[in-house]
């Protein structure tokens, strides 16, 4: 998959191309919870939106249950929209402030004709509220009467209202306080098991990903650089960027330890990304080949992929 954005291109400015996602391959199995981690600008959010076809890729294909969703239209697209839903980062922005909670939850069901009467809508909405741990008292409230955590519960309920089976969470707790964060994460985990859902979980918080996800995909500057099971990733990360990312995590225990190995530099411009491996200007283990050729994401073993020339499998695959 590739997603390019055109920048500028007016009468005088030269048109620039920004590759937010550059040739990413990813497959998700039913029941997976895949965490996508990386810094801002890595392409995490763009990836989530492409998969849901909220935006269209510049090149590449996205198949859902064997159907290419890039080409879907009409009825088939509506069917896909019911199955695949998203929960955004900020419930303050994703809920319409002038619409009551009841209508916020009933509207998608009316649109998709899941409910056909006011009574059935009401009973479905009540079920949804219970599902996300809220009571009927919220039906007639407006979003501003809710706390951040409660609003995010509503956003999750709304995504589930159309009986979705695949959910994209885009930083679902980063606009919440720590006290609300834990409750939302518990809810996300419980719902997955209860409803047998599949998740793509975008987050920059590795500690959260380690607790919620079964697999981890690491993105850097529009590329997928490592894909591994959560256990593998947190015990033995292969890509130097993954190692640095894990090293950057702050924990309260950190003051006892000496000076950590710190990352150099900052993420690159996506309009003029570095040649070869995009991480090479910051990489502590950089080799001559890294600035000349681009490493491909290759299998290191049956469950893990990485894109780094330190590994012979990558060398072979990139030839």
């Amino acid at each position, binding site marked *: 998959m590739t997603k390019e954005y055109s920048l500028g291109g007016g009468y005088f400015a030269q048109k620039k191309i920004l590759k937010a996602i550059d040739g990413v391959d990813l497959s998700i199995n039913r029941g997976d919870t895949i965490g996508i981690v990386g810094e801002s600008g890595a392409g995490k959010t763009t990836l989530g939106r492409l998969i849901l076809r909220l935006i269209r890729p510049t090149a590449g294909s996205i198949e859902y249950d064997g159907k290419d969703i890039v080409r879907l239209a009409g009825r088939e697209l509506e069917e896909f929209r019911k199955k695949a839903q998203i929960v955004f980062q900020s419930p303050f922005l994703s809920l319409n402030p002038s619409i009551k909670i009841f209508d916020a939850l009933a509207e998608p069901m009316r649109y998709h004709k899941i409910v056909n009467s006011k009574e059935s809508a009401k009973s479905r909405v009540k079920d949804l509220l219970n599902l996300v741990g809220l009571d009927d008292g919220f039906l007639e409230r407006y979003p501003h009467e809710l706390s951040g955590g409660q609003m995010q519960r509503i956003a999750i309920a709304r995504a589930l209202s159309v009986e979705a089976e695949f959910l994209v969470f885009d930083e679902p707790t980063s606009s919440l306080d720590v006290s609300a964060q834990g409750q939302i994460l518990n809810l996300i985990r419980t719902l997955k098991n209860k409803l047998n859902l599949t998740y793509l979980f975008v987050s920059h918080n590795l500690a959260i990903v380690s607790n919620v996800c079964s697999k981890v995909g690491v993105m850097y500057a529009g590329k997928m650089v490592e894909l591994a099971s959560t256990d593998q990733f947190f015990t033995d990360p292969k890509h130097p960027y993954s190692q640095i990312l894990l090293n950057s995590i702050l924990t309260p225990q950190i003051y006892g330890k000496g*000076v950590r190995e710190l990352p150099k530099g900052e993420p690159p411009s996506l309009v003029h990304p570095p040649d070869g491996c995009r991480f090479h200007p910051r990489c502590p283990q950089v080799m001559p080949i890294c600035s000349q050729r681009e490493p491909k994401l290759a299998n290191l073993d049956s469950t893990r992929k990485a894109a780094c020339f330190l590994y012979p499998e990558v060398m072979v695959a990139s030839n």
Partner: protein
Amino acid sequence: MLLSVKGLTACYETPAGLVRAVEDVNFDLDKDDSLAIVGESGSGKTTLALSITRILKPPGRIMNGQVLFEGRDILTMPENELRQIRGGRVGMIFQQPQAYLNPVLKSGFQIAEVLEIHRGYDRQRAMQEAVRLLKEVGIASPEETVNRYPFELSGGMAQRVIIAMALACSPLLIIADEPTSALDVTVQAQILETIRRLREQRHTSLILITHDLSLAAAACGKIMVMYAGKLVEAGDRESIFKNPKHPYTQLLIASIPKIRSSEEFPGIAGSPPNLANPPTGCRFHPRCPHVMDICKNVEPPTISTDAGQRVACHLYK
């Protein structure tokens, strides 16, 4: 004693009534100390930071208290003296570096201006000093960076420019309000390391405002926890983390997500109160797992423990 805050109360006038965002907060800061003020959104930590240098704007208002900086009260000081403290003896760093830089002025000029105003340097000398400061805060090509406009800088570089501005006049105290929340994790680690190194070299005191306990632990020796405008607990980093006394502190520490634990995320039931109409007694009592009858009616006094911690909770006498 470098800074001594006594009985500080600050409020906002809103249509819903007077909101006491900071109420009766007391703390001291010695030279070379580093203090983290930790709390959730709405706990009053930013209002506290703004009150210390008296830059709280209406509808915010400081109602009561003293902020003694080197023995002189900032809250009653005439404007011209205050100006020497802000940006001179106290440097400030804010959350969104790009928002605090003037977009139409080159970054070097913005640093130099501080030196011209506070130190009376001429332009040429101030610019030389700006280059030196940028180098000190870890910018690789300071000669080029001084000629760049803020939009040409990355978030991390812009924050370094802000830090250079804050350091320009060798302040005795730096107040940093969420200095790394807008930055990526790898850049956050770099900025923290820069602040740590600079503090070691210059013996500058630090007040760090943050919602992130891990960041507080990484950067500061002392920690003060605020809830709904009140100080609930304060003490050394080690004692706060090893032996937190206040139930809110305990829950806050337990809420930090740990790497790979299969346990439930603890979280804290309920949500922070509306400060226009705060709960009676202890403000945390509606959410507290150890709530007693006394908590609902009587506000807990702040007491000192044998280990030197201060805590405001009826569980302790």
